[in-house]
Structure formats: C-alpha cells, structure tokens
C-alpha cells in the first residue's frame, strides 16, 4: 500500500503546490478534516481556512485558503482553490481593511447589500488575519 499520495493545488492564476504528500488537513463546512494515503474517492467543498500538508520528507507547508473544491481518488488529490497563499505573502493591512469593510456592510444592512458575499468576504479576511498571526514568527 502506498504511504503517500500526489497533491496538486491549483488556482485560476497558476499552480500553488505539486508533489508527494503524506497527509493533508483542510477545512470544510463541518470543520477541519484530514486526508491520508489510500483515501476513498471524495469531493469536498472547502471554506476559508488554513490548509496544512506534509510532504514525503515530513516537511510541513501551510497555505491560507479562501474556499475551493477538493477531489481525491486513486491517491491523486486535486484542490481547485479560489485563492491560496503562503502566510508570508498575505498583505495583513489589506486583510484588516477588508474585514472592516465587510463588517460595515453587514452592520449597515439594506441598500442592496449582498449579505452572502459580505459574509464570505468577512470570513476570508478573518482567515487571512488569523493565518498571518499564527505563522508570523515561523
């Protein structure tokens, strides 16, 4: 039995990660879940959160995800992400501004505010901030 699986993380802007992986943790609506080699075929929808994966040498990589889709079968895992960033690449100030904006919009109500969109924007901003804070000193 294989102990690793092949992972590809793609966004519309390009490939973020590609390689052999021993474990991967991502966030779905129900919370964080893990994937090991020989996982049963699965399609999952991801929500804003962090994504942690371990490569063949035990090295851990963390990405900040703003949602996407994950498919795994035959030890091939593919994530089609809306966006995926390394914590070091995140513009922290921009995330703070985005959070403020989203909160304002949610607080304001009315005037044709798209609540779903504002809520998603808020979740993305909070996730960016949290991931940066957590991995700032790593």
């Amino acid at each position, binding site marked *: 039995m294989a102990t690793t699986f092949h992972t590809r993380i793609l966004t*519309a802007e390009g490939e973020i990660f590609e390689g052999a992986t021993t474990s991967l943790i991502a966030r779905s609506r129900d919370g964080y879940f893990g994937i090991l080699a020989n996982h049963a075929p699965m*399609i999952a929808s991801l929500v804003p959160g962090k994504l942690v994966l371990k490569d063949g040498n035990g090295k851990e990589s963390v990405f900040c995800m703003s949602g*996407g*889709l994950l498919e795994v079968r035959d030890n091939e895992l593919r994530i*089609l992400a809306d966006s995926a960033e390394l914590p070091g690449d995140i513009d922290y100030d921009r995330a703070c501004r985005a959070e403020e904006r989203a909160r304002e919009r949610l607080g304001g109500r009315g005037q044709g505010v798209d609540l779903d969109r504002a809520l998603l924007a808020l979740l993305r901003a909070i996730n960016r901030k949290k991931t940066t804070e957590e991995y700032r000193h790593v």
Partner: protein
Amino acid sequence: MPTLRDIRRRIRSVESTQKITRAMQMVAAAKFNRAQADVQTLRPFAEGMEALLGHFLRCGEPADHPLLAREEIRKRALVVVSSDRGLCGAYNSSIFRAAEKEIREAEDPEGVGVIALGRRVSDFLRRRSHKILFDFEMLGDRLSTTGAREIALHLQHMYATGEVDQVDVLYTRFISTMSREVVVKPVLGIRLDTEEAEGGAPYILEPPGEQLLGDLLPRVLFTRVVAVLAEVFASEHSARMTAMRLATDNATELLDELTLVRNRMRQAAITRELADIVGSAEAMA
C-alpha cells in the same frame, strides 16, 4: 503625373506608417506571449474543474439548483465576445458575421438576447439595433480573474432570476498563431446526466448533494468564463500581430516600388538637364 517631390513625400509617409505598424506588431507580440502563458496556466485548472463536475454528475445524486438546465427555454442569452480595439484584421468582423448567423438561424430568433463583451461588438450591435440584454462595454486587453468573476456573477444572476434560460458564449477559440476559430460554447445551464449514473465511482460528498452542488456550479461557471477569456485574449493579440506584420510587409513592398520610381525620375531629370547643357554648349560652339 506625380512630381519627384510628391514621390518623396509619399515615401516619407509610408515610412512613418511602417514605423507605427512595426511598433504595434511588437506590442501585440509581447501581449500575445503573456496571453498564451495565461492560457497555459489556466488549462489544468479548467480541466480539473470539468473533470470534477463530470465525476459529481456521475454520482447520480438527485439534486436541484437554480443553475441547472431547464426543460423549457424561452429566452436564450448569447454572449458575443470581441475586442475593445480594432486593427486586428478580420478578427472582429468574423465574430460579427458569426453572431448574425447564429441569431438568424436560431429556432426562435426573437428569443435570443445578446450580451456584448468588448467595445467593438457593442458598437456594432447598437448600429444594427439588435436587442442587447446587457453591455459589459470594456473588456480590457489582458486576463483578470477579478473581471472574469464579475462577468460570471452577472451571468449567474441573470440565469438564476429567470431572465434567461440558457447562456451560450460566441468567441474566437485560439488554436495557434496562424489559426483561430469562431465557436459557440454553452456555459449555462448545466445538465444533470443521470443516464451515466451507473458505473461511477462511489464518491463521498462533503457536504452531501445539493449543498455541494451550490458550491460547485458557480465555480464551474467562473472557470468556463475565465477559460473563454484567456483564449479570447490570445486570439485577439495573435490576430493583431499577424495583421500588423502583413501591414509592415506591405509597406516594405510599397517602399521598394516607390524608391524605384523615385530613382528613375531623378535619373530622368539629370539626363534632361545634361541634354540641355550639352545642347546649349553645342549651340554656342
């Protein structure tokens, strides 16, 4: 009969035109390289998305979603994609021709509403007073995922509210620098093929059925839009590159001809003057 001075002026003007077309050719080449790179980076993402959709559909989960295909199609939206700017050969006119044909030959031409994407096409359709459902006006000249997301969201809204029952895109598919093809591609609604349900791998769906479909379909739409746009930019810039190369080559040819004429005329003038001098010298002798 043009004088020598006219010919000289003509040569200068052709030369400066050639400088412009050569510069435009180089700019188009640079933009084309970027557009082609965008097409390539996008391909695995787009293929992955369609594969994932296919796998999901084969699970045969009974589900309902406003973006799925409808039984009755009363209103059909045709998104026609052209460029913002001209000077790209037959690129835009072949789009216009295909659009008119598509509308004329539709089962119900009255039921087809056009969504214009790119300034050229919105100008053209307005002149022809076609019914325009929506006009995005500017397209820009390079791929932006933010722009594609806006377009996808708008189409999604039009479809979900029932303003249209089907969305097709008419655009120029990029094959190579030498060949392009105008095609019509359906982007909405998405058909649930339960026929193929048997034999599919039993996928675990997280979250199950309908909710996952709700996360999946808007992303499929976005991916289709962004993939179309990537090809459109590659097509436009390669068309402009070819058109400008032809123009530059034509200018070279024209310059060769004009130079020949100029030299002949100059030689004739010299010969004439010489004949005059020799003639008058003889008369004095």
